[in-house]
């Protein structure tokens, strides 16, 4: 119970801190607009205007992913800059209880990107928000946020160890949303990418959202997304404990 409370309060405080950054607010306003525009023109050019909503949802998910990726890397790095990484790692808690609220908060604030992309799509491009399964869409969105938060923990564990974490985050942005089929269907990608896509929780989260948008069996995809994410959480928690010790040996918890 105490662990759940710690996770809840930690997530709330980190989400509060993130959502008060003027830089983050500016990004959150601009990026969804760019992504909605990108999705609309890509699909119009491809003569598939009936799939515009699906495209907007995919673009929104790209925003959630970017938030988690840069949030996990950036948040750990920001904690280092702020001098708070040492203070939170010094807490007499398992490292997973300290870091999971940070990645969960980035996924939570990233949800805004999904909503904003849909809103921009509706307001500027007139995309009709006609979901095949509105309630299942909500469930899929929640699963995506929870799943990405847990996946973020796996990323964050490496960021604790590496002092220049954001250098690692940048090259991971595009490959993941491409491989997960957030915008372009996986079927058009080379066949060697299929096994990689199959183990990414983002692939199944994107699929669940797509199925909820245009019709399909949503629950199996949600289940697989959450199962892979839970595996990421367990692996991340294990790595975090090991990496925290290595970071103390290497002296990388502080900025200098």
């Amino acid at each position, binding site marked *: 119970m105490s662990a759940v409370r*710690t996770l809840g309060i930690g997530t709330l405080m980190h989400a*509060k801190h993130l959502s008060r950054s003027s830089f983050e607010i500016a990004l959150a306003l601009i990026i969804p607009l760019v992504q909605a525009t990108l999705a609309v023109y890509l699909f119009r050019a491809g003569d598939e205007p009936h799939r515009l909503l699906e495209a907007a949802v995919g673009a929104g998910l790209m925003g959630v992913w970017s938030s988690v990726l840069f949030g996990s890397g950036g948040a750990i790095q920001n904690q280092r800059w702020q001098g708070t990484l040492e203070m939170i790692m010094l807490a007499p808690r398992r490292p997973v209880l*300290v870091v999971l609220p940070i990645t969960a908060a980035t996924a939570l604030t990233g949800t805004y990107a999904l909503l904003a992309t849909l809103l921009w799509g509706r307001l500027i491009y007139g995309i009709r928000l006609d979901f095949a399964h509105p309630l299942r869409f909500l469930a899929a969105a929640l699963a995506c946020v929870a799943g990405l938060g847990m996946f973020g923990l796996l990323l964050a564990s490496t960021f604790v160890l590496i002092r220049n974490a954001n250098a690692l985050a940048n090259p991971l942005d595009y490959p993941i949303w491409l491989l997960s089929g957030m915008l372009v269907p996986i079927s058009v990608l080379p066949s060697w990418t299929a096994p990689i896509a199959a183990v990414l929780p983002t692939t199944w989260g994107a699929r669940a959202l797509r199925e909820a948008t245009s019709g399909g069996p949503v629950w199996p995809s949600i289940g697989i997304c959450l199962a892979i994410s839970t595996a990421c959480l367990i692996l991340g928690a294990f790595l975090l404990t090991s990496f925290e*010790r290595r970071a103390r040996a290497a002296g990388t918890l502080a900025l200098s």
Partner: protein
Amino acid sequence: MDSEYAIEAEGLRRVYRTRTGWIRPRRETVEAVRGVDLTVRRGELFGLLGPNGAGKTTTIKMLNTLLIPTAGTARIRGFDVVRETREVRRRIGYVFGGDRGLYDRLSALDNLRYFAELYAVPAREQRHRIAELLELVGLTGRERERVEGYSRGMRQRLHIARGLLHRPEVLFLDEPSIGVDPVAARELRRTVADLAANGTTVLLTTHYMAEADELCDRIAVIADGRIQALGTPAQLRRRADGRRVVEVEAYGVPATALTALRDLPGVRETALEERGALQLLTVQSDAGVDVQGDVLRELAGVRLGRVNSREPTLEDAYVAIVNAA
């Protein structure tokens, strides 16, 4: 575990290895701490003094589990800092000086709520404990303001409140008064003295000799990664016994004059401190030798202010110890 000592360290060493560049990587090894032995009794207020880069912060970080020692062992209340990390962390608080270490976009109250949760303060006690600490550090009434609007003194007081949330038995204070105005620094000293009087063991690092002299039961002077002297402030002050100090306020002392001063008969130490445009030249000499006339002769042509001859202080003893290292 019920050890007589709150802090024990034996042969603590810490080496940093850095690598820069990818194609032709350059590796550097820096030995920050070269074998520190110390024991601090329960309830003692112990000072660790030393110049920048002497190894003070590295020593504190090995004792508070943030760094793993390269060699040697350390125990806090009998628990090993490497093997029994969580037991150690339950019993310690860590406060460092400066602007960092807090969530600026959160209020003081939110910062304290979050750290209370992280440091496992029972939920039913949190509200009372936070109110008590806000009162202690004089931030009651300002707790709902964001920390980014706080002065450095207020941040430092919030740091202290954060470090005390879980009632630590051992408190590490790493230069807590750095950049704090004199009134706030006096308040800080009173808070630290009260904590020690109530049984908290405090390990304090500071650059301010007066602060160490006023507060500490014992002081260790660390330089070049090793403890150079250890004793009560009175014992350390005696290191400068048999000496006399001449202080000269000057503007633009040339390096050649400083070298010449060091070579004067009877001179033991010289130090030049920059105070804005003014320089404060301190010359320590054997008590039986009057060097004031020689000093002023060497400074001929340099614009001078006040000249003073006095008994040595703890600071003079400290300078003598560090220079001898």
